[in-house]
């Protein structure tokens, strides 16, 4: 798994490439990367799942831990371009009731309400 970071206004976008699995972990986990952005004062985070095929139970834990850390500081963490298969699983598990998920990056960025 590879994660690249880019900025749009004050929103941090994580482009995730690969699968978020226990066995594919890089030097830093997704949650660690999110936390380091929060420590730098960033509060709006968008996870781009366009190139994510699958996540395992570790990956779900990472996403939710990132969501909790961000929200408890008054920030927002959202997901965009999640695959249909993953979305179905998110639906079944109730994750869609917690996580804001968008089909389109522009709509996701606008939803943060940044000028």
């Amino acid at each position, binding site marked *: 798994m590879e994660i690249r970071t880019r900025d749009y206004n004050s929103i941090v976008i994580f482009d995730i490439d690969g699968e978020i699995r*226990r066995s594919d972990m890089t030097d830093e986990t997704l949650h660690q990367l999110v936390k380091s952005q929060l420590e730098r004062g960033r509060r709006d985070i968008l996870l781009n799942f366009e190139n994510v095929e699958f996540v395992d139970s570790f990956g779900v834990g990472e996403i939710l831990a990132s969501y909790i850390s961000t929200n408890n*500081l008054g920030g927002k963490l959202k997901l965009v371009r999640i695959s249909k298969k993953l979305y179905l*699983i998110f639906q079944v598990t109730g994750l869609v009731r917690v996580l804001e998920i968008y089909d389109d990056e522009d709509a996701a960025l606008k939803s943060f309400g940044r000028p």
Partner: protein
Amino acid sequence: MNGSRLYRILRRLADIRPDECRAAAALFAHFFLVTFAFYIIKAVKENYQIGVNERWWGYFDLGTAVLIGFVVALNARLLRRLSRRRYLALTGLFFAASVLFFALIFHLIDPSTRTFFFTPLFVFVRYHPIAFVFLFSFWADIFIAMSVTQFWISANDVLNPHQAKRLVGFLVTGGLLGGIAGSLLTTGLSAAIGPARLLLFCPAALLFILAMVRVEQDERDKIRGEAEAGPGGRESKTGYLESLKIVRRDRYLRILAGVLASAMIVGQFINYQFKFIVKAQGWSDGARTSFLATFFLAILVISTVLHLATTGQILRRFGIRLALLVAPTVLLAGSLLVFALPAATLLVWTCVIRGSDKTFDNTISQSVRELLYIPLPADIKFQAKIFIDMFVNKFALGIGAVIYWVLYRVSSFAYKTTEVRVRELGVFAVGFSLVWIALILIIYSEYLGAVKRDLLRKWQDAQGVVKQHVDMDATRLIFDTIQSREKSSTLYAMNLFELVQREKLTPELMEVLDLKEGELKARSMDALLDVGGGAYFQGVGETLSDKDFEAEVREIMALDEFKLVMGKRLAEITAKREAPEVERMEAARLIGDMEPSADISAALGRLLRDPSPDVVHYALGSAAVHLRKAHLPLIIRHLGNPTTRESAQAALEAYGPRIEDILKRHLQDRGERPEVRQGLPEVLARLASQKAADILTAQLALGEDDLEPELVDALYKIRSSRPKIVFRTDRIKSAILVLLRKNYERLLAAGPAGMEGSDVRAAASLGVKRIFDLLTLVHPAEDIVKAYQNILQGSKKSGDYSLELLDNILDRDLKAWLLPLIEDLPAEERLRRLGKLARRLGAASPGEKS
């Protein structure tokens, strides 16, 4: 004067912000002018009242109480019809013109006045002076009530609660200085020019007030901002009856009215006592006016000194409740003294007790009374304040007057000595003081409720939201199941079976998994009996009914033959290093479903040392079932690896409170890997016992930087999940002080320029979050969370309400340390304050750091 110069001057006098200067200066001058006129009129009024027979005194008060209703109605109608600005201008002009009229009347009443014109007015005035004293008393009461009320309405319009709390002391100083100026003028000139001519100074002051009102109204929108104008900026159009309904409907307002009414009645009886004693001295008009003015002057000087020295301090240090209790307690004690003092000392006693009443009224009581209105919504506040100040106060005056009148008739007052009259009045002063104290105790609890009413959560606790909507264990299992489908049919079947056991295999999930009816059982049974590669009982799955499915699997797993086969198979897999990862995963998963034995435990131990995080994940799941003490060091070791940390934490949680001492030892062990130690607080948070909270608190008190975020998070989670857990206040408070000190050091090192830098702000913001998390442990958690969220993301108004709430719920020391860190202050001012506090906390100064 330009803004920055005005700010430089005013900031020496008050805790003021640059954008508040013009409004604050105008309000200061406004109150100065009101009280300047007020104290001239007051001395003149009291002189004429004392001059008439004491049987009229009750009628003066009763008349004011009865007629004030009509004035309130007229006032409400004016407010409905006119804009605020026009209303203030018209009432100002009315009072200026009418004071000129009374100056003429009292000039004609004066026996030394000679007139060459025999006019009907002159004759009428000379022969019916009591009518004009009555009219003037009534007019003066209206003027006093309206002008002061109008001033505080303006102040409430312009300032929000937190601004008001900071600036109220400054504004009251303006009022006190105005009163001193008015009293000085009266003392100096009353003997020379007489009381009537003194009134001629008032119209000029009233006209200046109109200019100040204009500035205040202009500043109102600027200082509160467009968004804040809301209801506060709207001018209310409701009438007198509506005001009465508002007060009747609202419990807080009813109690507030009761507090003010009882204070009024106590003051009234003290005033009657004062009048009797002064009248008994037998002074002339000029001498009496001069004495009264000197008395008021002395009160004002003492008030000013006390106010500057103590009001702010009392409010800051002791809060509203104690500040409210000071006046009734002292007056109660003073009123009781009258029953023990000899007659010769009564003049001194009455000056002291009335002086105390008026001093409190001018200083602490006035400041606190106004603060009690602040948590009310702006539109209600406006109507209620007018109603209470102008009607309830006078209604209380009416009650006092009726009691006085009854006492005068029933107790044959006219035939008693001054000493006896004063003591009989003292009984009522004592009684109403007790009522006043009781009502204060009630309103304080309501005050905090009223402040909180306006504060809403900006966001819900994310952990709670996740817990509410997502079954995390089931979610992990579902993802594991889906992942295992690609890897191993055995693993997949075992995961499916667990889903069935937990009743989580919903039709929706079956659709996602693309499972057909009956396939599940077949897959599960086949997989269970297929360990080792070959089918053990082919086709058994299809023969089972839904009802017996789970029981049947359990029975098979309990068979000695099954255990034997499985035991051999597990030994084979775990013994050989080159066994494929997927087989090790299957073995690790299967152990969780097997009966415990020494062989199984040994195999699990080997799997817990496996290099593959996926194998370890399943092994940790099985360890959470067998709960063997021997596995604990292996499990704890996995806390240090981010990929296995969560599974290790879940496994340790399954052991329950019996491992708290082991966790504590690892947490305290500085030789342990930091990553492992950082994973332990979460486990203790999940155990959420009193002992777990104590272990975390004790560790936090050691002040280790590496563990601080995890310890604070864990303690906060315990507070959220178990509200009844008790945390040691002394340890939490010292941990908060450590965090405060770190924040001070960070900001002081950055200096005024660097303080606004994003990195410094971000670090400070995280530091502040942790401080608030800790505050939830020793204060009402919901209040602290709301205050934090509103300070961070609320409007200016809700941020100020949050500060007000913190000001009332935090203890004296904590708020002194915390507020300068979170208040909206200019950078230089913040650094100045933090520097002072840092020195007191023993934090390193920037120089020391460099």
